[in-house]
């Protein structure tokens, strides 16, 4: 299966290359896409089912030095993939540095991907500059007050301090990466399983576990007093596209500084037998100066999903907190022992 995907991706790159040149030259645009008919479930709904991975080396935001170009050249893709493969070795690691420790272990253990899965120069597709829009003034003020909150609301592999586990991210605490964080690629476990039954779509997420169960029967959102880590999702079919709207987020977790006022509209559709496009529009007028949209390819893996019972052996949390206590003890001892 993996071989098939590689061949497919390579073929896609070759097929798309001419259209990129057209796009760059500003002429008529891409040639008409080969018609693809989305299969249907036995009960007649579009069939999105399968296991997929969204790992990619396409950058989230457009790098400054592509000079605003929307697509990579074939040459750049080749260079990026070569570099990503070489990264699997020891190159560029400086022993004895914080960066080397953070890198943890050699790349065998990771699953970040080595392929450009979309030729776009960023996963952010709107605004047209491929960059996340600036924060509002209000959001910047909130940012400054984050330290006063009862718990850290970030979702990365980091924290705001080491006094308590509440100073560590929701990721390190094994809670969730939130939305749309949990639908976005990370360093490993970038796997998803979509299953359907009449009136429901379920999306199982491997990283940190959990399954989103999305009704497509037209029911309304729950009342505004109900707040959840993953919000409240309702879905509907627009043609062959599953459209999911999610609101009712808790204020205990941030997505790029957005919390309880976050509103997401996800659009999931098959673009071919082995690929789904996942598109999400992120709106929060209290946080972002405009709505913005991300598009991520989900590539069929045909592989099994595995459980990720994150808290099973989360010695890391213990190590982080006890490490900080030991460093404090040493610092106090050094202070006591130092000549006046």
């Amino acid at each position: 299966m993996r071989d098939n995907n590689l061949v497919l991706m390579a073929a896609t790159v070759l097929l798309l290359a001419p259209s990129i040149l057209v796009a760059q030259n500003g002429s008529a645009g891409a040639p008409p896409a080969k018609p693809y008919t989305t299969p249907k479930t036995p009960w007649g709904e579009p069939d999105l089912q399968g296991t997929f991975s969204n790992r990619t080396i396409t950058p989230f935001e457009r790098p400054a030095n592509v000079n605003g170009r929307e697509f990579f050249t074939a040459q750049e893709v080749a260079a990026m993939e070569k570099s990503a493969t070489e990264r699997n070795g020891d190159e560029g690691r400086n022993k004895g540095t914080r960066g080397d420790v953070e890198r943890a272990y050699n790349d065998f253990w990771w699953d970040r991907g080595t392929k450009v899965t979309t030729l776009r120069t960023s996963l952010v597709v709107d605004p047209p500059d491929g960059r996340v829009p600036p924060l509002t003034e209000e959001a910047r003020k909130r940012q400054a007050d984050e330290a006063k909150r009862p718990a850290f609301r970030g979702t990365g592999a980091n924290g705001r301090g080491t006094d308590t586990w509440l100073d560590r991210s929701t990721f390190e605490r094994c809670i969730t990466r939130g939305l749309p964080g949990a639908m976005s690629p990370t360093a490993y476990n970038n796997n998803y399983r979509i299953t359907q039954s009449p009136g429901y779509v379920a999306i199982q997420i491997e990283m940190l576990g959990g399954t989103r169960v999305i009704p497509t029967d037209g029911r309304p959102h729950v009342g505004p007093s109900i707040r959840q880590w993953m919000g409240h999702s309702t879905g509907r079919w627009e043609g062959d596209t599953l459209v999911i709207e999610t609101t009712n987020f808790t204020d205990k977790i941030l997505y790029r500084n957005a919390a309880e006022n976050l509103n997401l509209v996800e659009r999931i559709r098959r673009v071919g037998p082995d690929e789904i496009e996942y598109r999400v529009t992120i709106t929060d007028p209290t946080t972002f100066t405009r709505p913005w949209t991300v598009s991520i390819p989900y590539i069929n893996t045909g592989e099994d999903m595995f459980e990720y019972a994150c808290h099973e052996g989360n010695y890391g949390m213990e190590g982080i907190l006890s490490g900080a206590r030991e460093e404090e003890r040493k610092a106090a001892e050094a202070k006591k022992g130092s000549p006046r």
Partner: protein
Amino acid sequence: MNMGIIRSGVLIGALMLMSAAALSAHHSFAAEFDANQPVQLKGTVVKVEWINPHTWIHLDVKKSDGSMERWMIEGGTPNTLLRRGLTKNSLPEGTELVVDGYKAKNGSNRANGRDLTFTDGRKLFMGSSGTGAPRDGKDATEK
């Protein structure tokens, strides 16, 4: 020099920077282990804890005075290893390993397994130029 190559070089540099956040594990290794305390441990595998979020390899390490010391080495996540063809039986009890890593900040006998090497010099898990997986015919770069 070809401008395209120069541009690509700059671009790759930028991309590497941008993906820096994605390089981190489930939790901060730099908060757990000390960059100022690199360790090299030669020992034999006692057991492999095949657990989430990360595997832990338990090693018996002989000290210079001849006594034995038990160490725990933090490794990758089991799901990725399974997809790479590894199982908890891939490092049976008694396997001799050399571990290069960094010692835990809390002073305990724990370290991350930056590099694991067999005593004959083969690096564990750095087999091919592709996925790094053991050569099992699945990796296109093996052909």
